[in-house]
């Protein structure tokens, strides 16, 4: 167990951890590039002809492709753990400085070696109470730092260069049986809450086996914790990218992940136009989670722009709250959107997507560390994505605290109450010049930005259909206030804001 003192927490070099994180991320990316050479090499062996020697050569190079590609994934995990460590350490140091300043203002002295708090002059009841409070805060900071240190150490320990070459060929066995594929496949037919209970019932070795043996199944199961899905999906993504003829969109996702700290890959599927979900920040530990649902024409190639948009919302939302890192924003392309606005009238994709979204949100609820109602969850539907959110809500299964739609062509309803949510928690953003207003009402239902629809319309100061996330805009800031439950700070065009908010 970590034996850090407050003095060492204060002297900790978060930038050194960040630099190391960058180096590990670069190492992972470089290993990806190396494995591509080997994949080409293997293809050349395959093209060289037939014969026993070539078959063995092919097998040899294939093994080496796996060895190199397999090393990239744990390097990325170490990078991710170090980025998290650097961010959290910097936040703890800021907190510590604030507490020390408070101590000074009360005439108190803190010994950072022992954590003791003493008064420099005569002690009355008020300074005594302040001293107790400061001592408690310091103890909590130290405990958090030690937990952080232990968690990072464990993450590093758990990421050897190759899972199958690190000392043992298998996870440490604990006597529990290894899971067969059929058992894991059956979980897809259960509710996310049941899946979460099943996962918790497994031993650590069984969970490790499941991640290693069936990453494609584990990664997509709603009800599995984000960190476990991330590990399974990254391994699955590496495998998919290494296949001949792998869609270039998968490489785009891999490249984006390599360049994005604190990202969790919650879904990856290269079939068709592809499906992907990336969370920025761990949704299982965040106080506020927003799920961003994109609109027509979205596919894997869009990952760079969409994650940048997601990051912008997260950054601004996080800046509006007291604690750092308590907001997670998920980019969720878990459905097959129509390819263009001309196909946007089709309700099939929004209905199918709505069902998938319901399940995804249930999964977030099921795995949150504070229980199913512990976190504040918002779904943010953009353009056609708003119809997906609406279909989920209309069916009565969308377990969110707030629903935000921007650039919506309509929500397949005539009034906000048909969404089975308190209309005060349904929020609409619509810029005056958004071209989506030209979509005729009969196609997707009544214009949700109309006062008669019954939702809250918040102020937007951006133009067009895709400007809602412009930095320093009221459009973005209002979304940030909603996803962090700071309803009294949202500026409204019309509507009625909820009476109380969430702790910011």
């Amino acid at each position, binding site marked *: 167990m970590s034996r850090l003192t407050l003095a060492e927490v204060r002297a900790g070099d978060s930038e050194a951890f960040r630099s190391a994180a960058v180096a*590990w991320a670069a190492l992972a990316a470089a290993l990806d590039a*190396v494995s591509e050479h080997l994949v080409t090499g293997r293809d050349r062996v395959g093209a060289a002809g037939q*014969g026993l020697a070539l078959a063995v050569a092919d097998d040899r190079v294939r093994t080496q492709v796996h060895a190199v590609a397999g*090393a990239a994934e744990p390097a990325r995990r170490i990078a991710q753990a170090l980025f998290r460590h650097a961010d959290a350490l910097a936040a703890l140091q800021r907190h510590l400085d604030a507490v020390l300043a408070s101590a000074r203002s009360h005439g108190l002295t803190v010994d950072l070696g022992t954590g003791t708090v003493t008064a420099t002059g005569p002690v009355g009841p008020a300074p005594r109470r302040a001293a107790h409070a400061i001592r408690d805060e310091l103890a909590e900071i130290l405990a958090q730092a030690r937990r952080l240190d*232990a968690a990072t150490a464990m993450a590093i320990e758990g990421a050897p260069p190759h899972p199958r*070459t690190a000392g043992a060929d298998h996870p440490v066995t604990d006597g529990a049986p290894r899971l067969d594929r059929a058992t894991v496949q059956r979980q897809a037919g259960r509710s996310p809450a049941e899946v979460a209970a099943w996962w918790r019932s497994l031993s650590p070795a069984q969970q490790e086996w499941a991640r290693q043996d069936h990453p494609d199944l584990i990664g997509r199961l709603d009800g599995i914790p984000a960190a476990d899905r991330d590990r399974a999906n990254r391994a699955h993504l590496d495998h998919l990218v290494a296949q001949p003829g792998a869609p270039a969109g998968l490489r785009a996702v891999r490249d984006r992940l390599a360049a994005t700290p604190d990202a969790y890959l919650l879904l990856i599927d290269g079939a068709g136009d592809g499906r992907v979900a990336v969370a920025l920040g761990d949704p299982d530990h965040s106080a506020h989670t927003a799920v961003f649902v994109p609109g027509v024409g979205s596919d894997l190639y869009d990952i760079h722009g969409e994650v940048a948009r997601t990051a912008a919302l997260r950054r601004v939302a996080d800046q509006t709250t007291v604690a750092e890192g308590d907001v997670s924003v998920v980019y969720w392309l878990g459905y097959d959107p129509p390819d263009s606005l001309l196909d946007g009238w089709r309700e099939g994709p929004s209905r199918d997507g709505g069902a998938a979204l319901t399940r995804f949100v249930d999964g977030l609820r099921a795995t949150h560390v504070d229980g199913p109602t512990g976190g504040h969850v918002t779904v943010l539907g953009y353009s056609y994505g708003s119809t997906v959110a609406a279909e989920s809500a209309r069916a009565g299964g969308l377990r969110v605290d707030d629903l935000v739609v921007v650039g919506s062509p309509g929500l397949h309803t005539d009034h906000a109450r048909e969404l089975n949510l308190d209309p005060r928690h349904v929020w609409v953003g619509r810029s005056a010049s958004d071209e989506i207003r030209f979509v005729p009402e009969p196609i997707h239902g009544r214009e949700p930005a109309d006062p008669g629809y019954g939702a809250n319309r918040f102020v937007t100061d951006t133009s067009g259909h895709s400007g809602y996330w412009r930095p320093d805009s009221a459009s973005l800031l209002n979304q940030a206030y909603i996803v962090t439950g700071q309803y009294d700070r949202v500026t409204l065009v019309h509507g009625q804001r909820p009476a109380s908010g969430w702790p910011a």
Partner: protein
Amino acid sequence: MVLAVDPEHLRGAVDEVRIAAINIDELIVQHGFRLTVPGQRRWESAGRLETAAESWRDHLGRLATTLHATATRLASVADLFVAADRAALARIRSAA
């Protein structure tokens, strides 16, 4: 079994495997000393990182050695196929 071999493809594979091996050699030099957090020894995570980086350097070193050996073997296999073909040709000619 049908035996049909294009040694040029095999040499192309040799080039790719060799590039991979050299790249890993360079990775070790380039990243080897930036993977740790010097001066943070009181942090357990920094100590683990030190150990992990050492183990990764060893692993990558072994990987590079294996890849160099594979490239060399593939190159000699290509040479052997060419030599065997020439030997067979010489045998046919001498028989005629």
